[in-house]
């Protein structure tokens, strides 16, 4: 595989891993709050969190472009105060991947939390555990099946992300080109060999992610 393609593979893996890590704490907190508590505006948050799943990715990309562009409210703020540009940089690739995969993580983690017997959390409290300890030693491990599935889904969704990315990050060789964007370009330009090589890479990544999560779960259930 030519060095340029390797660079694209490395870049894609790095931004997808980074975006998944980035949404993990927020996603878990959101899933937990949605599962355990009733609060005003909960339905609104549920709907907003699900939106990227049902909106066309290009539409989500357009919203992100308008918000994070230099003249957009968030983009202007970041540019003025922190000298950070988002659109058409690697940050935009991370942003698009994070937004598009967030609902999948939240939904899956929420199912995980729903499956936890809350009486066990109560028992942990009778044994003197603080809420934080209960969460990290009881709730989180018992919800791990849903959480790991959510992480894998989120990562896989990030690798496959195309529509929002191309709008908000463009397809700048060496800067924002991901596997999906490169496959699209290769097909457009008639570079079939490149497209098929990258297709194989995609399959290997997807296979490895699912296989790893299954392995982790198997290990967990044998413990």
């Amino acid at each position, binding site marked *: 595989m030519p060095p340029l393609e390797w660079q694209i593979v490395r870049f894609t893996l790095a931004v997808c891993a980074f975006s998944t890590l980035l949404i993990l704490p927020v996603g878990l907190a959101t899933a937990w709050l949605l599962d355990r508590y009733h609060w005003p505006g909960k339905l609104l948050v549920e709907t907003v969190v699900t939106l990227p799943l049902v909106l066309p990715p290009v539409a989500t990309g357009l919203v992100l472009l308008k918000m994070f562009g230099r003249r957009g409210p968030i983009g202007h703020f970041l540019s003025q105060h922190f000298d950070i540009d988002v659109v058409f940089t690697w940050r935009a690739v991370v942003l698009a991947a994070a937004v598009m995969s967030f609902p999948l993580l939240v939904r899956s983690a929420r199912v995980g939390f729903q499956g936890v017997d809350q009486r066990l959390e*109560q*028992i942990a409290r*009778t044994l*003197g*555990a603080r809420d934080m300890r209960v969460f990290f030693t009881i709730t989180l491990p*018992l919800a791990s099946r849903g959480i790991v599935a959510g992480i894998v889904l989120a990562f896989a969704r990030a690798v496959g992300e195309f529509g929002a990315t191309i709008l908000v990050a463009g397809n700048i060789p060496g800067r924002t080109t991901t596997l999906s964007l490169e496959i699209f370009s290769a097909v457009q330009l008639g570079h079939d060999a490149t497209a098929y090589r990258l297709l194989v890479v995609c399959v290997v990544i997807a296979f490895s992610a699912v296989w790893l999560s299954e392995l982790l779960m198997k290990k967990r259930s044998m*413990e």
Partner: protein
Amino acid sequence: MKLAIRQLSLRLQQFTLGVDVDLQHARTAIFGPSGAGKTSLLETIAGLRRPDTAKISFNDQLFDDSGQNYSLPVRLRRLGYVPQYDSLFPHLSVERNLLFGSNGKPKDHTLEFHHIVDFLDIGHLLDRHVRSLSRGENQRVVIARALLSAPQLLLLDEPLTSLDAKLKNAILQQLQTLHREFGVPMLFVTHDPMEATAICEEVILLQEGRIIGRGDPAKLLG
């Protein structure tokens, strides 16, 4: 021990649990038929249920006072609760379950740990996975875990139910001597007169959420 429950009121599906009682005996049974409100009473004392009204204190430590909207957090009550349902943490080994309340590290066991483990005869189970335990082993580990958290009172909710006669007798004997051995008082919920008579000094009779009698188990239930 001195457990004072004042004007406890908790609305349940069929009736309202209404209890006003002082308990002093170290081994007290709460006896009554299924659905009498025994478990709800125990859960309220443990802080797992919020009563509509109540003032509950244990050895002068206030647990609940609905008048002041006060409820001591469950973790600060230091009550060893042994529920009816499976309560071992399924993702932890027996040893990790036992050490959960004492924050201890594996292979770094205290004398108290050995004492409790030997007393309940569960030393050979330490490395086992919780799912591989029999019902009787499971119950003994739950009791040991509660004891290891250094509770000031043990709350036992029908711990001998669904055990066969031989196992029931074995654990019954352990429960009989448990107070003498560790000095922890206990509230023992049961619907079996034999268990109440064998283990406890006093029995409280509960029916449809009301106390309808109290006294010596042998006289009241015998």
